[in-house]
């Protein structure tokens, strides 16, 4: 799998290079190969709990750098590649990775295919989640775009079908459907959460220490529909995702294994924009299904959603307000199952009230500042706080981004 992937990327980079220098024509980089990118650097400071890393002491481990290459080879065929280096707390460490890389062939407006590593359409904003300058706040609402689950849901090696159906006077319907496998990084919050859980279960079963923890995604598949009705500025969406990952590790001197499935991850979305206002709301449910060292983890079906308002006072200056809620188990909103396991009930929810300001200094340069007050410690917060978590906590983020 990885060998084939490497060969594909080398072929793609070669084709992009060839596209940049067509035979019998003057070298014209701008005509045949477009080069873009972005850089961002942030600072995060929290109180009460660490969030995504050592944020209690204040952390600059919050950045992304990307280089994007695109070439329209023919009317139908486009080749593209984005390299991404990111550091978000303990994840990323600025390793340079291929964010997406694809050959995109479009037969008709209603049918195209993308092969390679494709971004996954989950909710309205997952495909643009690494470009923070595209949205009013630094982090997308965590009930749906959980940073700890990013590795599993951001992109997959495989393919997707996409297209746009015109419904005449009734509007437009865009669809995307995909199947593939994810390069599941062991430094992701989700993998480290599984390792932490495996360690706890191994201790309970007196099996010894967990080591050499590796994650191997088996598959992801899903799709999205976005309906644009005749009312300007309104978009309605629905998306579906399912994925399964195997985890291999040593426990004591023996091999151990675990499986994790995120299934029936459904997001319902609505967004309405005018020139000054944007209102977005999304609702989600998903089922977790984990088995670690033969022990079935009672994950249940989680539930979440948010409402976000953004108002532009001037064309390039705006303010945002977010209310974002997540319940680990929609049938146990008060966290009583955690209490039964000897853990605090507030691991069962996360309620985030955030306010933010953003200033687009130019069309390429943006600064954002925001403050969040959070009740609850769901969404893997114990991974970053092994000494224990607090129920009420806050975080402040300052971030600047430049794109070209």
């Amino acid at each position, binding site marked *: 799998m990885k060998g084939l992937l490497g060969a594909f990327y080398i072929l793609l980079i070669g084709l992009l290079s060839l596209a940049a220098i067509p035979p019998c024509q003057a070298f014209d980089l701008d005509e045949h190969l477009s080069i873009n990118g972005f850089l961002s650097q942030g600072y995060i400071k929290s109180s009460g709990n660490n969030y995504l890393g050592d944020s209690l002491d204040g952390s600059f481990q919050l950045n992304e750098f990307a280089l994007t290459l695109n070439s329209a080879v023919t009317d*139908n065929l486009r080749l593209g590649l984005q390299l991404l280096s990111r550091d978000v707390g303990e994840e990323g460490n600025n390793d340079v990775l291929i964010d997406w890389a*694809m050959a995109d062939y479009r037969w008709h407006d209603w049918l195209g295919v993308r092969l390679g590593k494709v971004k996954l359409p989950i909710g309205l904003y997952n495909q*643009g989640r690494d470009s923070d300058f595209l949205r009013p706040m630094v982090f997308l609402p965590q009930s749906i775009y959980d940073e700890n689950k990013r590795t599993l849901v951001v992109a997959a090696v495989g393919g997707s079908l996409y297209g*746009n159906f015109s419904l005449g006077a009734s509007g437009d319907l865009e669809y995307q459907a995909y199947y593939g496998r994810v390069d599941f990084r062991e430094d992701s919050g989700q993998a480290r959460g599984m390792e932490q859980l495996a360690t706890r279960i191994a201790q309970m079963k007196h099996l010894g220490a967990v080591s050499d923890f590796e994650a191997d995604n088996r598959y992801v598949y899903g799709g999205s529909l976005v309906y644009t009705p005749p009312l300007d500025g309104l978009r309605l969406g629905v998306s579906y995702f399912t994925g399964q990952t195997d985890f291999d590790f040593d426990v004591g001197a023996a091999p151990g294994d675990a499986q994790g499935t995120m299934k029936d991850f459904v997001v319902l979305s609505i967004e309405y924009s005018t020139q000054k206002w944007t209102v977005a709301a999304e609702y989600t449910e998903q089922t977790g299904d984990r088995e670690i060292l033969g022990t079935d983890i009672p994950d249940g079906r989680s539930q979440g959603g948010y409402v976000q308002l953004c108002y532009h006072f001037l064309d390039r200056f705006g303010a945002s307000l977010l209310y974002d809620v997540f319940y680990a188990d929609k049938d146990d909103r008060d966290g009583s199952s955690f209490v039964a396991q000897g853990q605090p009930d507030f691991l069962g929810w996360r309620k985030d009230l955030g306010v933010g300001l953003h200033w*687009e200094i130019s069309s390429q340069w943006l600064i954002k500042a925001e403050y969040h007050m959070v009740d609850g410690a769901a969404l893997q917060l114990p991974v970053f706080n092994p000494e224990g978590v607090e129920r009420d906590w806050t975080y402040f983020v300052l971030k600047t981004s430049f794109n070209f």
Partner: protein
Amino acid sequence: MVMLPCRFVLICLLVLLPTAVAAADFAVVVNKENPVEILDRDEVKKIFLGRKTFWPNGQGIDVVLQEEGEVHQSFVLEILHKSPRQFQMYWKLALFSGTGIPPKQQSDDQAVKAAVSADPKMIGYIDIRQLDDTIKKILLK
């Protein structure tokens, strides 16, 4: 006493003039070889948002934008119903998520006319006062 009304009229003209320029009339233009004569406004919107990418003869549509200015602002507001900033963000999302390449941009009407007259598949927009016989105006329904 006579100077006061004159000064008042002058001030009124100065105040009104930018408004008149900001609402610049534009024309959607294609290459003279392009057989298309009329387009629905919604079709033009889909073309500039990358949702309609082929002409009726099966050839791909090449889109050209103006970088900024009153013509660009009028076109984006009136046809796409977005602010120039929102339109720019729309294409940046496509660019950085790998779902599309933003259209090429030209600096002014003359550059757009030169690009459209050189490419049979291209569509753009210019100040209506800059129309000439090097390009063809599309009638908007």
